[in-house]
């Protein structure tokens, strides 16, 4: 089933895998909500969004355009017995209770917003804003320009090849960010944060229970803050970096491959300068080691 529609619409496909295509244009945002299952977003060259949703039972795609937003939901036909439990198959209704796997294809310019509960999500190859939030699931974003926001309450997050402003938040889970440019803010409570091949003027990475690793360019005048309560902080930066480095740890060691001369310090914190010191590099591990390595 393939249909191209514009304006307010309702697509219905009473099949186990619903498939519909909807016209879009630049400046629009796709908003998809899926309680449980998976959402995979990839790109193509057409000015349209193709949505394939499968569940294993009769499924209906509800797509509604409101202004510049295309909202997509699904309904699943479920059958109920007298007491409302799903076994007697005495009557049926539509609801959103069930796992749905989405495969969505969008033009690269489209902004994408995904939300879910027990939902794995991936967005690959887009060039607009990306916002993905799940309570329990894996999040992968490859590409994206503009504002990239990813949050998982309980699950790992991976952002690669993005540029713009990147904000990643995990309560429990590891954050991997690599090959990105633009401001980066990553925060976790219980998990490691790994930043690799970062080209950014502003980086903040903070976790409570986990290690923080940074590898990338330190730009003159930039600001880089890496901190943890319980874990190691490791920064690998190029030779010739100009930075005022501030190291703090309450219970741990400091190790560096750079020749340094301490500028001053007190209260578990000390500073030193690399080159002309124009950038600010803050490395803090309350209980853990701080390592400053040559890239």
């Amino acid at each position, binding site marked *: 089933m393939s249909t191209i529609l514009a304006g307010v619409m309702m697509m219905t496909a009473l099949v186990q895998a619903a498939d519909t295509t909807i016209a879009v244009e630049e400046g629009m945002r796709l908003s998809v909500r899926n*309680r449980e299952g998976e959402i995979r977003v990839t790109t193509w060259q057409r000015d349209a969004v193709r949505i394939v949703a499968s569940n294993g039972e009769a499924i209906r795609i509800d797509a509604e355009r409101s202004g510049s937003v295309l909202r997509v939901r699904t309904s699943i036909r479920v059958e109920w017995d007298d007491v409302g439990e799903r076994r007697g198959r005495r009557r049926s209704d539509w609801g959103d209770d069930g796992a749905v796997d989405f495969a969505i294809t969008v033009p690269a310019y489209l902004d994408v917003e995904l*939300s879910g*509960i*027990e939902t794995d999500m991936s967005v690959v190859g887009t060039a607009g804003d990306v916002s993905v*939030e799940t*309570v*329990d699931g894996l999040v992968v974003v490859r590409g994206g320009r503009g504002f990239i926001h990813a*949050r998982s*309450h*309980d699950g790992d997050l991976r952002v690669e090849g993005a540029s713009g402003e990147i904000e990643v*938040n995990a*309560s*429990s889970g590891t954050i991997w960010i690599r090959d990105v440019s633009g401001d980066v803010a990553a*925060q976790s*409570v*219980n998990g490691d944060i790994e930043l690799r091949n970062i080209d950014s003027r502003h980086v903040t990475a*903070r976790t*409570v*229970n986990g290690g923080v690793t940074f590898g990338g360019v330190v730009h003159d*005048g930039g*600001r880089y803050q890496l*901190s943890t*309560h*319980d874990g190691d902080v490791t920064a690998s930066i190029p030779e010739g970096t100009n930075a*005022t480095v*501030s190291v*703090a740890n*309450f219970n741990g060691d400091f190790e560096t491959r750079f020749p340094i001369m301490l500028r001053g310090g*007190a*209260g*578990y*914190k000390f*500073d030193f300068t690399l080159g002309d010191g124009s*950038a*600010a590099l*803050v490395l*803090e591990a*309350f*209980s853990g080691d701080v390592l400053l390595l040559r890239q």
Partner: protein
Amino acid sequence: MSDNWMDRLSDYLDDEMSPAERAQLEERLAEDEALANTLEGLRRVKARARAVDDAAPPHAQQLWEGIAARIGATVPARREAPSVAGAIRPWRSRRVPLSIPQLIAAGVALMVLSGGGVLLVQGSDEVGDTPLASSDARGIAAFASVGATRYDQAVFDLVQVLEAQRDLLDPETVETIEQNLAIIDQAIARSLEALRDAPQSEYLRSHLEQTMRQKLTLLQHATALPRSL
């Protein structure tokens, strides 16, 4: 000397000192401005905690709207959803963990009101002249304005919201939230312990504040979860 009296301020407020000790402390309070300020901070915390304890448990959504307005968060439009009223447990039947908010708030008050804490209150671009110092001060000042005097109330309220919404969340999600709160509380406790030994450490103060801010963020996110269901 004031450190010894600092430890006794709660006893003073709770009227658990001998008349002689009270007189000694009051004499000290007249001389020591930082000690007096800290006492005032603790008095406010305890008064606020009592006021909240005496209040009827509000509807979770109303409570959240109040908090959101105060901390500048966005409140999603109300949606038709199963009422959480039935999920709210009688708050009085559950012991409110007052000790943690009080401890945290007292920690903030100490930071704001003593020594270098003056810097936090001023919190302008004029504070510090290095890239590190000025930026840190701005961040700390922003937190203080949210802030230092309201933090305990915000945490307290959010914990109430979370408790009221507990039955709406998946048990595994609740378990994760509780684990993470325990991790942060442990980090806060260890930071406070470290600060007790090194109260002048700028790093330890900053670290404590950042960790407390993370607790607030976690609670904000956690209390928003049911609205996404």
